[in-house]
């Protein structure tokens, strides 16, 4: 009799533990599901705030870019160029003009403001060859 089995008692124990666990688990799941919209909303709000911050940063950069473009234009004004030439570089108007014809066109001026200009295609970066690139990783002098 010492080795009597109690299959019923084991089965009862399984059901008596499982049902509350399932119920508690389900409650947690429902609770978590209820939190999900909150998490989503929080995420959206955070992302929105981040976008707004980036927009603000972009606006700030654009303002500074405008200021720099105006500054460049002021530095390139004819009045300033002449003043610098006369006062700082001590240049004087030429007494004799020599005309020299060359068949190479001059560089086009960089147009500013640049906001409506077409984007220039990015020139490919000059890359070292593969072995030089690998060698550059080594701690060599």
């Amino acid at each position, binding site marked *: 009799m010492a080795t009597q089995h109690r299959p019923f008692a084991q089965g009862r124990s399984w059901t008596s533990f499982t049902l509350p666990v399932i119920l508690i688990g389900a409650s947690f799941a429902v609770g978590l599901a209820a939190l999900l919209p909150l998490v989503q909303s929080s995420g959206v709000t955070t992302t929105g705030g981040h976008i707004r911050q980036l927009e603000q940063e972009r606006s700030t950069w654009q303002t500074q870019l*405008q200021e720099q473009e*105006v500054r460049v*234009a002021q530095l390139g*004004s*004819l009045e300033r160029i002449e003043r610098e030439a006369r006062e700082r570089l001590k240049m004087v108007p030429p007494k004799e*003009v*020599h*005309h020299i*014809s060359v068949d190479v066109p001059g560089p086009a001026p960089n147009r500013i403001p640049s906001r409506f200009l077409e984007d220039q295609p990015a020139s490919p970066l000059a890359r070292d060859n593969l072995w030089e690139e690998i060698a550059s990783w080594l701690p060599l002098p």
Partner: protein
Amino acid sequence: MAAPRKKNAYAWRIWAVIAVIGLGAVVATLRLVQLQIIDHAEYAAQARRSHISQVSVSDRRGALLDRNGYPLAASEDSFNVMVERRAWENPEEAQVAANKISGATGVPASQMVDIVESVDVFEVPVARNLSFEQAEKVRELDLYGVRLLEGSKRVYPEGNLASQLLGFVGQDSGGLTGLEADLNPQLGGAAGTLTFERDGLGRELAIGERSESPALPGSDIVLTIDRYIQRLAEQELDKIMKDRSAQGGTIIVVQPKTGQVLAMASRPTFDLSKPDTSDETKQALYRNRAITDTYEPGSVFKLFTTAAALDLGLVSPTTPWNDSGVVKVDGWSIRNWDFSANGTQTVQQLLSKSLNTGAAWLAGLCGPDRFYDYVRRFGFGTLTNSGLSGEVEGKVRTPESDPGWRSVDAATNSFGQGLSATPLQMAMALAAIANGGTLMQPQFVKQIMGPTGTETVEPLVATQVTTPETARTLLDMMGVVVDGMSNYLDVSGYKVGGKSGTANITGENGGYKPGAYISSFAGIAPLNDPQLAILIKVDEPKDVPWGTVVAAPSFGRIAEQALAYMKIPPTEPVLVRGVQ
């Protein structure tokens, strides 16, 4: 038996209370139905209005660029410091805050305090047009009742260059005069709308509802003006004003083949960065005299009389004619400017010596109908369609338009008196001679570069006035005229042509002002392939009135420098050196 009676006695009271509560519940329910279902839209809109703000937003105003893309007028963001009056009610606190703002902006603290104390409004600007850097310093101060209002200010990198042509904008960034006003729809762009949720103080909620209909930025407009040639013209005007103590003047430089105006300068002028619209006495400075003011062109007009006679085949440069020194028309005597009688002269000599009698003779040969037909076709008496507001037509009296017209009018008109024209009309007519007899419409806008693309403005032909052969003949005659001016005009390396003029000025009572003249010179360079048509007009120079002396030297200096700048090779080969 008493207990059941008592129970019944209370029962109706309970039912009465229940009924009252029930009725109240029904009323409340009905009211809720009314508020939340029937009138839902109205109340929802009211609620939305109370916490949603909608403001108009605008993008940056477009820039005015010269023909090579250099900015003549551009906009940059600026900031105004706004102060709530109630925040500065305490004088000591106001002074402390003002001192801090003063440190960041440079605006005197006392001035800011005075501004706030002197007005009775909720909020007032105490410092205007701050740069981004200054604004950041103010923002970092984080002062109570102080905020930054973003705006825009117009800047002129080339200073006051072409001030009357460009014009200026008002405080709302709208164009008031000049091209700023005429091109305002393109420069200003289109306003957008920003909708956002606000808090009780009207500030935008960081996590609230937000939507934006973006503003359309203004287009950048590339003008036909060349800043280098414009500056040359303005420097020459300033020199003439100083050397000749003149009252004013105008210089216009036109590219003959296209009608594009390369320079348009007038004096007196004004400071573009500080236009004072409240001062009535300064209003006259803001108008573009090249299109709003007319003058009697004087002897320069003989070019067009000669062109008419040449084009009609009535004369050639060598056609002889006898100058007796006086021409009688309608009982009036017309004499030469120097009262000379030159005997037998050619048409070329008529132009070189600028003989009034000869011009009257040519007009007589043409006859009034044909003479005025050419005058009209050269663009006199009609608008040039420049697109600039304020332009006037000038005055040309003809037998059809004026019953009081007499033959002597055609005679005086032939040498540029008794009619009036704007400097722009004169410059365009001159450019027509340089352009093979084709009159172009004056062009000021070359390209419009906007957010939706770039529009290129093409030159427009107004009319064919003379044959190319007539125009060529006249150019050669103008070259001979200039050959006789070598003391005053020498453009080394280039063959140029022109004609001077000295005209009386009409006074207020209709007669001529005694001792007051307009000196002018109309020139073309180079003659072999005209690239520049230049009109120089000087108002009331002192001491010497002659166009040859006053205006022609300026033409020479402008032409010489402009041709070199435009890389037009000289026609004299000794000055040219080639590089392989």
